[in-house]
């Protein structure tokens, strides 16, 4: 009889401790819940849904009635069997993205090396200029490049006309596939290289000065110092900026869509992103558009898996 209250007391204390432990265990999940919830609703479910949609004949009728109409691999068969994909859309997407990534990373690295060479004054001037290029939103940047290359009043047409290099008002660079993408490349590289330059520059600062100096003593020239010391030391940084540039450049949309003819008027210049958009929102073939979006995702996935494998070989720990 006398021991009972004490037993309950001990039990209550144990229960309180257990409760406290549960609260402690729960706390990180409570903190994570809102963020994970948002990501689940906005990323994972849509990702699953775009795959489901790609197996459906999902058009206006299905939108209105809410019924689904699974057609298996029909959408993929249509797209992959269409020579348009192989001769136009895929080359446009892949060649454009690869050139943009290559140019962005090379130019960004060169600028980072330049920044390191400069004195503090010029370094500030140059990094402010880089920031300015970076700050230009994709949409306004695109309009500026269109305006620069405008066939009627653009500064490039005017200049070339003045020196007699082109027939005035008869050269429209936006109609030809190659010159269209050359302008788009200029636009994307101008907007994209500052990120690479600033990141690589910041990484360069982490390399201890003694390393290249020792190499210099050993008689290594600038080229050897760059490839033997700089590149290996900041390889993870190069991988990260290359991955990010790849992701950005494969799904370029606004820069293509907003250019003259880019919104579907000129079939020759379509890329995967714009093609998916046009199939869905101009033709109301959401299933077909989804299949194209899935193809784009798979393409990106294949490329990034390759990169990530290379990155994990670096033995990076979280």
């Amino acid at each position, binding site marked *: 009889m006398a021991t009972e209250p004490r037993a309950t007391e001990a039990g209550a204390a144990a229960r309180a401790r257990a409760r406290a432990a549960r609260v402690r265990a729960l706390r990180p999940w409570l*903190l994570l819940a809102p963020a994970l919830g948002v990501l689940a609703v906005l990323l994972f479910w849509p990702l699953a849904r775009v795959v489901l949609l790609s197996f459906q004949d999902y058009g206006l009728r299905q939108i209105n009635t809410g019924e689904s109409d699974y057609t298996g691999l029909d959408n993929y068969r249509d797209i992959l069997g269409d020579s348009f994909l192989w001769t136009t859309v895929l080359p446009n997407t892949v060649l454009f993205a690869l050139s943009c990534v290559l140019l962005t990373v090379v130019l960004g690295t060169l600028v980072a090396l330049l920044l390191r060479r400069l004195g503090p004054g010029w370094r500030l*001037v140059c990094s402010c200029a880089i920031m300015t290029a970076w*700050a*230009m939103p994709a949409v306004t940047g695109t309009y500026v490049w269109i305006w620069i290359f405008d066939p009627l009043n653009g500064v490039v047409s005017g200049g070339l006309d003045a020196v007699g290099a082109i027939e005035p008002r008869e050269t429209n660079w936006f109609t030809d596939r190659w010159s269209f993408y050359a302008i788009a490349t200029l636009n994307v590289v101008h907007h994209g290289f500052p990120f690479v330059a600033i990141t690589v520059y910041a990484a360069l600062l982490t390399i201890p000065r003694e390393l290249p100096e020792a190499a210099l003593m050993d008689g290594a020239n600038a080229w050897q110092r760059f490839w033997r010391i700089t590149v290996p030391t900041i390889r993870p940084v190069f991988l990260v900026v290359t991955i990010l540039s790849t992701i950005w450049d494969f799904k370029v949309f606004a820069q293509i869509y907003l250019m003259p003819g880019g919104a579907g008027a000129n079939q020759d210049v379509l890329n995967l992103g714009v093609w998916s958009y046009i199939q869905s929102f101009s033709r109301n073939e959401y299933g077909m558009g989804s299949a194209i979006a899935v193809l784009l995702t798979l393409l990106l996935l294949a490329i990034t898996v390759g990169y990530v494998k290379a990155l994990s070989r670096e033995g990076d720990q979280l």
Partner: protein
Amino acid sequence: MNRTTPLRRLGLAVAVAALLAFTLFPVYWMVSSAFDPAADHRGAAVLPQGFTLDHFRHVLDTGEFGRYLRNSALVGLGTVLLSGLLALFAAVAVARFRFRLRTKVLVMILVVQMVPLEALVIPLFLQMRDLQLLNSLLGLTIVYLAFSLPFAIWTLRGFVAAVPEELEEAAYLDGCGWWRMFRSVLLPLVAPGLVATSVFAFIVAWNEFVFAFVFLQDDAKYTAAVGLHRFFGQYSTDWGAVMAGSTLITLPVLVFFVLVQRRLAAGLAAGAIK
């Protein structure tokens, strides 16, 4: 290492000049066209042929463009507030607590950044339509959360981890509750990180085109990026007006970049190397 021969100096000078020309010319061209009375019809020359505010007046007088800018600002601020709050909670969870699946959650957040969000336009369009959030700035804000959250969590995680745990323990010993500690110890110390992620989130929302273009159907709801497109169509030859609008959209981003330049670079380097 920095032996400066005249040839080397010349090489550097050429490189700097080329860099400045390439980075600044489009910006110069945009601003100069926005003020140049000849920008719309007489054709362009490298030096402006006069000075006028007419293009800006033209863009702002209709009242449309001011509304577009206001919508963009609303969506941007909403994204900043929501993503800052949610990302800070999540960052504290992964930086301060040891729990099962912690590494898995971290890897997942990293991988999520690889999902090409543009590929999700179609399902998100249908989802927002079902939720009646299609033609609304709130719906757009929610979508931009997905753009900015993973990066914000990843960056803030570094800042939270950098706060010494002894400070928190000291606060506990002084009788602070967890929430008090959070507000008065942790929050002030991770504030610089919050500034960096806020700028990032704001710029994402301010610049985004595809989702805004697909989701917003009503002229009154357009953000500046979509509004400019509309404007471009309406006055397709009035380059002065389009450049004035472009200048107005670019200016806030430019100011932000200059303000946080150092912090941004440091944050990027930390994120890329860690």
